[in-house]
Every structure is written in C-alpha cells, then in structure tokens.
C-alpha cells in the first residue's frame, strides 16, 4: 500500500533503511518473545538498555575515561543486561512478584544505575569498531542489521532446539503440568529472563553504536514497541504461541509502517494515531480466521 502511495518507499535505499532501522527493535523483540512465550511480560528493556548503553560507552574507547576494552566491553554490557534479566526472574520466582511489576521495578533500577554512570557528562564513543557497526556495510546492509539477523537465527535455534526454548514455550502452555511431570520450572524462568536481558543488553550496545554516545534514554519506548511488534507478529500475550520468527515478521511490519507513514507524508500529529489504528486493524485481521465462539480473549 505504501509502495503505491510513495515512489521513494519502493526504492532499494529505503528497503535498506527499513532493515537498518529495524535492527535494534528486532534484537529487543527477539528477547521479549521468549518472555511473552512463557506468558509473562517484560517492561525492563528501557532501563536495561540504558544501563548497558552507559556501560559499553564507558568501557570502550570514549571521551570520558581511558578505558579501551573493545569487544570485552561489549561483552560486559551484554552480561550486565543478563544480570538485570536474572534480577527480574529472581523477583518473579522467589518473591513471587508478577513479571509486569518485577520488570517495571528492574527498569527503574536500570535507569538509576545508568544515571549514576552518566554523572552529568555525555560519554561519546571513539571506538572505531563499535562506531563502524552502524556505518560499515556488508552486502548493502549495515553490520548492525547482520547482528540482528544473527540474533534472530540464534533465537530461533534456541526456541526450536534447546530445552530452555522448548520449556519456555511449555511454561506458556501449561505451567502446572510441568511441575506434575517433575520439571523444576523456576530455573528456566530465571534463565529466560536472563536470556531476554542479554538481548536487551546487546540492543543497548547497538543503540550506542548508532548514536555514537551512551544515552540513559537509549531504550526509551522499546518496551512497548517490542511488545507491539511481537504481538503484531502473532505471539500471544497469554503465552504458548508464536515465536522468534513470528516476531521478526512483526518487527518488519511495524518498521514498514512507521517508515511508510513518514514517506507518505502523514502529519506528525497524526502518525501515532494512524500507527495505533493500523496495529489494532492488523491484529483484528489476524484473529478473524481463528475466531471461535468460546475462545478466551484477555
């Protein structure tokens, strides 16, 4: 539809642009998909990404200190994301706090930690490799986009071929049954949140690479966008349905939509509204074929 409305939309350049713009969202959505598959929800990406963005920008070559850890710094940032994910998971299984709240709390903690690291002065990265991720291209797509593709692949493999992935799926289907079968679900839940956290951590690194600076707000808005993308892709919030590939499609749909609206020249006032309308319409269209009389919709 956008292709009909705007000639630029059809251009190869714009296709590249959409793919590049989708990279971070794709990685974050990949992470959140596992949580959604379990039937939980994760709102921690904003905070986790902020913390990881600040961490990586202070650990690789930057204008604030003399660190120059390169890849190691990136790994630390991803691990930090993992640790935050763990925290959410532990709050869920040990304190029995619903994930909605646990992850909201962890997000606040992440933002606090990021603000502490920020300390008033913007860290700009000078690390050539990290900056290069956003700029250098391979087969027409930026390295970041390839990283996102790799993440989706890894995510899919985890979902299909590992116990973690399958159990996450099963937890969304019938958690109580796993317990009856003697499976201890708690470690898997924590692990799923940690996995998601790692993806957010990587997302934070990618944002830093794009912006050339570590921002506390690096993850702003990704929490809800990622959920939207996953749901548009067909992952159910009640868990047990959907998956990484679904989500990847959802991300592309959402990105095409945002991009298309700008390309077609919809007034900025209305863009959010049109987006919302289309998301609702898309989901409505998707559920029509599987509508059953007594099916539960929450």
């Amino acid at each position, binding site marked *: 539809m956008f292709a009909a409305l705007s000639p630029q939309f059809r251009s190869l350049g714009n296709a590249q642009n959409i793919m590049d713009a989708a990279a971070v969202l794709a990685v974050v959505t990949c992470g959140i998909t596992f949580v959604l598959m379990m039937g939980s929800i994760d709102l921690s990406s904003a905070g986790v990404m902020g913390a990881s963005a600040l961490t990586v920008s202070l650990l690789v070559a930057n204008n604030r200190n003399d660190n120059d850890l390169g890849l190691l710094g990136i790994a630390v940032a991803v691990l930090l994301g993992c640790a935050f994910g763990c925290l959410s998971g532990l709050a869920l299984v040990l304190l029995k706090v619903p994930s909605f709240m646990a992850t909201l709390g962890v997000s606040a903690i992440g933002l606090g930690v990021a603000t502490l690291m920020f300390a008033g002065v913007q860290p700009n990265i000078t690390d050539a490799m990290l900056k290069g991720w956003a700029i250098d291209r391979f087969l027409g797509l930026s390295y970041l986009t390839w990283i996102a593709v790799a993440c989706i692949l890894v995510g899919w493999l985890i979902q*299909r*071929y*590992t*116990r*973690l992935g*399958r159990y996450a*799926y*099963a937890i*969304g*289907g*019938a958690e*109580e*049954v*796993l*317990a*009856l*079968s*003697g*499976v201890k679900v708690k470690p898997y839940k924590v692990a799923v949140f940690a996995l998601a956290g790692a993806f957010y951590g990587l997302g934070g690194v990618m944002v830093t690479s794009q912006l050339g600076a570590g921002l506390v707000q690096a993850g702003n808005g990704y929490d809800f966008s990622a959920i939207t993308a996953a749901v548009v892709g067909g992952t159910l919030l009640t868990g*047990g*349905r959907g998956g990484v590939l679904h989500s990847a499609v959802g991300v592309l749909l959402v990105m095409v939509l945002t991009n298309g609206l700008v390309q077609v020249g919809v007034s900025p006032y209305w863009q959010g509204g049109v987006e919302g309308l289309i998301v609702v319409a898309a989901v409505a269209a998707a559920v029509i074929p599987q509508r059953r*009389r*007594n099916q539960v919709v929450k």
Partner: protein
Amino acid sequence: MPALEVRGLVKHYPGVKALDGVDLVVRQHEVLGLAGENGAGKSTLLKALVGLVTPDAGEIYVRGEAVKLRSVVEAANHGIGMVFQEQSLVPNLTAAENILLGSEGASVRRGLYRWDVMRRLAQEQLDKIGSKIDPLARTDSLSFADRQMVEIAKVLRIEQRSQHPPVIILDEPTSVLESKEIDTLFAQIRRLREFASVVFVSHRLDEVLDVCDRVTVLRSGQSVGEVAAAGAVPRELHRMMIGSTGSDDHYHENAASVVGSEQPRLSVRGLSGKSFRGIDLDVAAGEIVSIVGVHGSGREDVCRALFGAEPATAGEIRMDGRKIDLRSTRAACAAGIGYVPAERKIEGMVGPMSVADNMTLTKQKARCAGPFVAPAKQASLVDRWIERLSIRTPTRDTAIQRLSGGNQQKVVLARWLVGGDIKLLLLDHPTRGLDIGARSEVYRLMRELAASGVATVLLADSLEEAIGMADRILVMNDGRVVTEVACPAGGKPSPLDLVKEMV
C-alpha cells in the same frame, strides 16, 4: 515383600480430613483397585505416593524401605509414576515432548533437542499401547481420548527410568475413554502386571473387578476393607463404600415418566455446523433423549450448538414452538436451556470461586432481592441444594476447586436447578468421574426433572448409561444422525444393536 506399603497416612486440609490414617498395601505384580465415594480421599492418597501431597503423618514404604517422597522426580526414581485424574499434558507441545517431559533421556543432550531420537523414543511408548497417533502432532490437536493415551504412554516411561519393578498409578483413566480404548488399556494393564504393580481407580465397579486382582475400599479417608476381585460383585463393593446397602434400581427406571405426545419442547431442523450436518431432533417435555456415537461423531458439537456455544451455519431451533436465535449462551439461558460441559475443570466451574457463588452464578435472580444480592437468601438456597444433592464440602464458602471431582460436578449441576425455571438440560457426560452413589443420585435427579417436565439431551458416559436413562436414543456417525432407537422402560435395546450403527 510388598512393592509399596502405606501405614496410617493422615492429611488435613482446611475444614476436611482428606486422609484419616489410611493403610494400603500394593503387592508385587498385582493390579490393585481402589474404590471409594467421591471425596473418599483416593486422589489425595495417590498424590501422596508421587510426592505431590506431603502427608501430615504416617509412613510410606517402597519395597520395605521407609521413604519420604518430596517430589515427582523422587517418586519416579523409586519407580512410582501416575496418570492424573485431570488431564495433565502441555497442550502446545508435541505428543512426543509430553511423553518424554521431565525424563527426556537420550533425546536431549546438553540441553539440545534431538528431534529424531525424541520421535523414536516416543514412538516406542506409543507402540506399547498400540496408539496410532503421530508423535510429532501437537497435543491440542488430538482428541480427548488420544490425549489420555498419550498420558498413559507417558507414565510408561517409568519403566525406563527406574531399575526396580515400577508402580504405576492410574487415577480414573477410563472416565474419558471409549470401550474399545478401555479394552486396549486393560490389555496394557495386564501386560504391566508381568513386571510391575498397578494401582487402578475407577468409579465403574465392574471395570474395577474386571481388571484388578484385589480391591481396597476407602471411606472418609480410611481404608475400610479389602476384597479379592475374583468372584466379587459390584454390590458388595458398593456396600463397603457407603457403609450400607444401595438401591438396586440404579437407573431409577420405575421413576421414568410417561412422555405425552404434545408439541415437542425442543425442535431442531436442519442444524449444521463445522462437524455436523442436517441434524433434526425433537425432544418432548419430560423426555430424555440420548445421543450416542464414537469420537468425532460430532455429538458434542451439536450439544454446544444448541446452547449457542458453537456456531451453527444453518438450521433453526424452536423451544415450545418459538424460534430462538442462538448466537450467545445468554439467549440460551434466557430460553430456559441449561448446559453441563464435559470439561468441568476448564469450562464447567470457576475454580477459585466459592461453592455458593458457583452455584448461583447463572440464576442470579434466585439469590437476589430486586437488583441486590440477599446474602441470607443465597445462604439458605445454597445450603438447601448442598443437602439435597449431598455435596460434600466444608462450608458453602469453600472454593470449589478444593472439592473432589464428583462433588464439583454436583455443584455444576445444581447451578441450573436453583432457579427452578429450567426447560431443557443439555448434559455432556454429566456423570464423568462420579461415584456410583453420586451417579445414582444424578440419575434420580434427572428422573425428577423429567417428571416435572424438563426435557433432557444426554451425552452419556457409556452405552449402558444411555440405554438405562434414555427414552429414545439417537445414533450419530460422522456428523449425521444415522438412526433413532426407541428405548422405553421394559423394551430396552441391547448395546450391540447400537454399536452396529455407530461404526
């Protein structure tokens, strides 16, 4: 040395003593039957044997050795496995994964799935019970009975898991099976006896006596006796279960009402839906019509369509001659139709809500004064029905999920009766999981309702039940009514006549 021995097991729940010093012995290579009324404590006892219920007192001995069972895994390591009363499969996993869940063995190496191995291992289990289902089919795409087969296949994994002869517990495995499948299961149980011990629970006492070597009877959380199966008769067992002699006339046939031939109460013409076509059906006031058919015959969907819970693509439905538009369950309720679904746990009851609230959920008027709830009115109403149906519950405010299966079912039935305005009852396996006594009461209730002019459509639990209760039987096959058999008291058809038409 017995395979399993239980001595003086006690378990308290708030308000009830589920187990009150039970003793139980399971010998090597025997099939032990466990009989008892609803709420006698059978499931609780068995759950204690697989570590899901921690007893307050008493000991469990496995092969003479005292053990503490804290989890399913521990129990499995001692060679004890169980098929639960309520189905317990993960719907969105494949059958293979469900079969191997928790004991994946060689099919998962270092957390990585090897689907081909998994398929093979699952197939081995399915072959044992001769099930034809595809191991890689998603469980929720299987029929109820196939899922039950998967459960049995799953528990047989115990053989691979423990080096000792296993003890396999089956808690009401037959309540959702067809007679052919039951035969397969029994063959399986007999095969198991060669190398294992089996504990078998069923409310169908003839089944129990058929497959078991010995039957232990539970009453109110205590073991009250033991019977060798050979030569025993169901009546004897029943007497032990309830502590007195039950009535002979199980189906209360002498109470069957004589159906007049006025205009039918329910009249269905050309009803079609996804899994059924061109259904014509008349039910007169006071008549009990049973629909029988094999799995997938579509009778269940017909029943749901009559209640507006399943979309119908064509046809019309009239109640007392008035056409009704059944696009919502509300309209059906308003027209005086009641429905008792088969999947009680998911569809029949609201688990965390109290017995009283569940009972008055539909007929709100019965507990209200004007638009307001009258607590006193509700209390007396609920208490009356609890007594009338002898529902075993600590108080009317107990969450219904805390009741035993049979008692839950009675509450669900009561829901339609409290208003006193019911005209047509659609009963989908209303006696599934009920003990003989409770069954008999339900039958009596159905007769009473029929006598008061309520029309009933019954999807019976067994052919015998259909024949015993119905005035008329419709046989469905592949979405169509293939024949109709009159079934008056005194002129009952034989099961064989019906089976011919069903397949």
